[in-house]
């Protein structure tokens, strides 16, 4: 059961188009998985959208009479998009060791940017996702007993549980949960369930390991979470 949702403020920022591209991606992937946030988002979209584009949203005559030049002509010379019904498109998947995981639609466009899995320290598997400069993203799979060394964050680490359950010494997380960690959080994710746990994680700055000698792992944090 999903217990961790984006805050109302994060949803509003997302709907208004005012959050970072990385946060927008994880929020929209969560929305794909969460009926509650789906409903909340469509309510927000209706009220914010209607207001932003309402008849009196622009009263300045100069703004209303902007010359758009040949824009209409350029647009109407474009062909109509092919009619593919959204619901008929197959859900994107990712595979690890013969196991197929269904992904939320928002992550579908990145499947082809996902590199191959590598096996890391502590029963962890990682597949890097090329997201360009918006952040460093990975699919991370924790086998039963898999453990990430305790660390904090120099930026925001946004995580979405794709399949399974894990704990991090702060809370227990289930499929669909949305987790945002920043420099104020220290945690040590691990999974103890038989089926393990697949998460999608995006960090907008490298992780910073904190506990004792594990700090010396920092030079290698790029090997874990590029």
């Amino acid at each position: 059961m999903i217990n961790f949702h984006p805050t109302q403020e994060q949803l509003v920022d997302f709907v208004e188009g005012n959050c970072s591209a990385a946060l927008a991606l994880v929020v929209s992937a969560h929305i794909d998985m969460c009926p509650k946030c789906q409903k909340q988002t469509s309510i927000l979209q209706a009220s914010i959208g209607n207001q932003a584009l309402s008849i009196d949203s622009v009263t300045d005559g100069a703004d209303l009479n902007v010359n758009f030049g040949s824009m209409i002509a350029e647009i109407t010379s474009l062909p109509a998009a092919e009619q593919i019904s959204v619901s008929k498109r197959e859900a994107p998947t990712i595979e690890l060791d013969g196991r197929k995981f269904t992904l939320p639609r928002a992550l579908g466009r990145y499947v082809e940017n996902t590199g191959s899995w590598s096996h890391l320290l502590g029963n962890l598997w990682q597949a890097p996702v090329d997201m360009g400069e918006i952040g460093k993203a990975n699919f991370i799979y924790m086998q039963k007993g898999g453990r990430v060394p305790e660390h904090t964050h120099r930026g925001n680490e946004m995580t979405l549980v794709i399949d399974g359950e894990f704990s991090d010494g702060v809370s227990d997380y289930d499929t669909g949960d949305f987790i945002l960690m920043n420099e104020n959080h220290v945690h040590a994710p691990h999974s103890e369930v038989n089926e393990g746990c697949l998460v999608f994680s995006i960090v907008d700055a490298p992780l910073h390991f904190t506990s004792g000698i594990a700090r010396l792992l920092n030079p290698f944090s790029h090997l874990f979470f590029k």
Partner: protein
Amino acid sequence: MLVGIPLEAKRTEASKPKECAKEMSAYLQTVAEDRCKMSFSKVFGYFAPRLRSYALKQIGNEALAMELVQDTMSNVWQKAHLFNAEKGSPSTWIFTIARNIRFDMLRKQQNRKEDICSDDLWPVLCEHTADANEVSLDEQITLEQVGGLFDELPEKQRVVLEGIYIEGKSQQEIADELSIPLGTVKSRTRLALNRLKEMLKDHD
């Protein structure tokens, strides 16, 4: 309480957006069914200035605001058949398209940003993308051993790595502190990481 506005006028004001939604829905339907350019120009005439005004407030750049209007209205023209009046108003639908395009633009913009070199945000990390698979870091290497390796680095390289990874400084900060060029900090970091990787390979 607003002074001087008769009740009647107020009521007309309030009913306007709804009528407009109905009107715009009908135009969108004609665009979807007949590719009607006239109907599209009505939709454009209403939404384009409002989208531009909203985008300008948000982005603060005229050219990008116009790009957002063009991309959004292109989607409206090309995907009018996806609009469903039962699911929401034209404003909601078009606003949502604009929002998604805004995030696409944000992604592209971030990838275009050259003033913040990825190197500075991701010290060394980006240069070693290919290495993750080459270096096998398995359970055989304990954290203590890694600590030991760290001490084997030449002093100058170790200081730079400690600054970046343990103290969390940027490469620029370290350059300023040590009064050495940024390029030197970068090359020392690169040398040190390569050295550590060599040492790790020897451990296998």
